């Protein structure tokens, strides 16, 4: 009966209702999980129930806030570093044949190196401080930013360049008035991808060597067989990632009111 109701919805209302649907699905899954754990009488160290996890979240809230802050700082700093390196580099790659031929292939090639594998090396080199973690975050976030900025800057049409020339635009004007704004949608798509990778980078760095951050909480909880605490940290972690992603999306919509939402690839 309800299925019949749903099929009569117009597409627009279906889209507007997408968020509640996702929420309902999540709640349904949690209920199934809770019931399954209770029926099977699974011990907490194998699979904690959602209720246990929520209790742990509450008990650990002070601790989790502190460690979330640590991870957030690593992510934000690494993200900024990646941005500050990626955008100028992408501009150089776009304007200089030499850079395109010499640096670009190396950047692409370097992506085959698993960052997890170099994390111990960086930690050995820089110690346990903030620097190696920020470096790993930056390395993770860097690639999608460079690639998407290059793609965006290159997407300007030949006619657009001709137009700027016929107006007598200086190279600076050509870049900032014609090329750069057109690259922004692609750059934002890159930043969204980068934000997800940045969080992964921070956690990996904290796994390998750290005495704080959400990655550290997960490691310690794991070694104490506190699955409930581990899950609590993971919940906070995914909330952190989601919020960062959402904030970038918000900035994008504010900064690019001209951008058709349908073109928003939804990365």
């Amino acid at each position, binding site marked *: 009966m309800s299925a019949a109701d749903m099929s009569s919805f117009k597409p627009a209302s279906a889209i507007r209702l997408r968020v509640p649907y996702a929420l309902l699905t999540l709640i349904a899954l949690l209920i199934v999980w809770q019931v399954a754990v209770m029926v099977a009488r699974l011990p907490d160290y194998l699979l904690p129930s959602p209720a246990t996890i929520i209790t742990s979240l509450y008990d650990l809230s002070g601790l989790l806030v502190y460690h979330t802050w640590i991870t957030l700082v690593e992510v934000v700093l690494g993200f900024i570093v990646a941005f500050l390196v990626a955008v100028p580099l992408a501009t150089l790659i776009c304007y200089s044949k030499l850079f395109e031929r010499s640096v670009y292939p190396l950047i692409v090639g370097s992506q085959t190196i698993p960052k997890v594998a170099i994390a111990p090396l960086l930690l050995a080199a820089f110690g346990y401080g903030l620097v190696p973690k920020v470096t790993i975050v930056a390395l993770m976030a860097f690639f999608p930013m460079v690639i998407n900025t290059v793609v965006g800057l290159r997407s300007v*049409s030949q006619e657009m360049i001709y137009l700027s020339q016929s107006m007598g635009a200086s190279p600076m004007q050509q870049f900032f008035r014609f090329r750069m704004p057109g690259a922004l949608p692609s750059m934002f798509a890159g930043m969204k991808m980068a934000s997800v990778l940045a969080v992964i980078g921070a956690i990996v760095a904290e796994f390998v060597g750290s005495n704080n951050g959400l990655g550290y909480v997960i490691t310690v909880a794991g070694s104490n067989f506190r699955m409930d605490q581990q899950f609590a940290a993971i919940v906070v972690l995914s909330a952190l990632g989601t919020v960062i992603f959402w904030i970038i999306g918000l900035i994008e919509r504010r900064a690019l009111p*001209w*951008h058709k939402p349908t073109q928003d690839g939804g990365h």
Partner: protein
Amino acid sequence: MLNSTRSGNFISIEGVSKTFPTRKGNVLALSQIDLGIKPGEFVSIVGPSGCGKSTLLMILAGLIPSSGGVVHVNGRDITAPSADIGIVFQRDVLLEWRTALENIVLQAEIRKMDKKAATERAMQLLDMVGLKGFENAFPHELSGGMRQRVSICRALLHEPPLVVMDEPFGALDALTRDQLQLDLLKMWQKSGMTVVFITHSISEAVFLSDRVVVMSPRPGRIEEIIDIDLPRPRRLSMRETPKFAGYAHQVTSIFKTLGVLREGDDE
């Protein structure tokens, strides 16, 4: 008002040719083009697809170099992108991140013209092409015909002595096309500018022009130049006159002789 060259021509194209190097060897796009255009003249160029019309226009605007020959506009050698020009491209080439008005005023911003006066003129132009009330719309909110109208306004904002248009109405429906032809003629007559207009449509060329330049298939040569001796201002009803039909027939026969048309109808 305008300087003329020795021959009284505003534009003189002498022996211009163009070869494009491609992987399959050189492509001769234009061969030995000679054309003089008087100040304030409205000249159309018709020719089959790929015969080099756009190429000729880009050479005239100084946006691509010719392989031989010389181009003078207003007594000056064209060797670099010319700024004393307004260009309407085959595609509208609007900046998606600027509103209709901002797209037009961009012309003034880059040229460092008075912003207030430019805005006023832009509003007048928008009014003239029937886009009053759409000044704050973004390009993606406009139809194809409306977008092309904005790009025409942009090309005219700085009152250039020369306006070149590359099939500006090619993608429009017949009704919009008729209206824009009339609007364009009105603006041309008011301003005294010289217009070089490329089109696929024989009747459009005859309707608008003082002279119609007929080009051969690639390598593009000028096959014939036809004086259109119809009174100004042109009226839509003139298209039904025997004289108009005679001119259209003349162009059509040239294309038939060239083998471009194998028994077709007018247009």
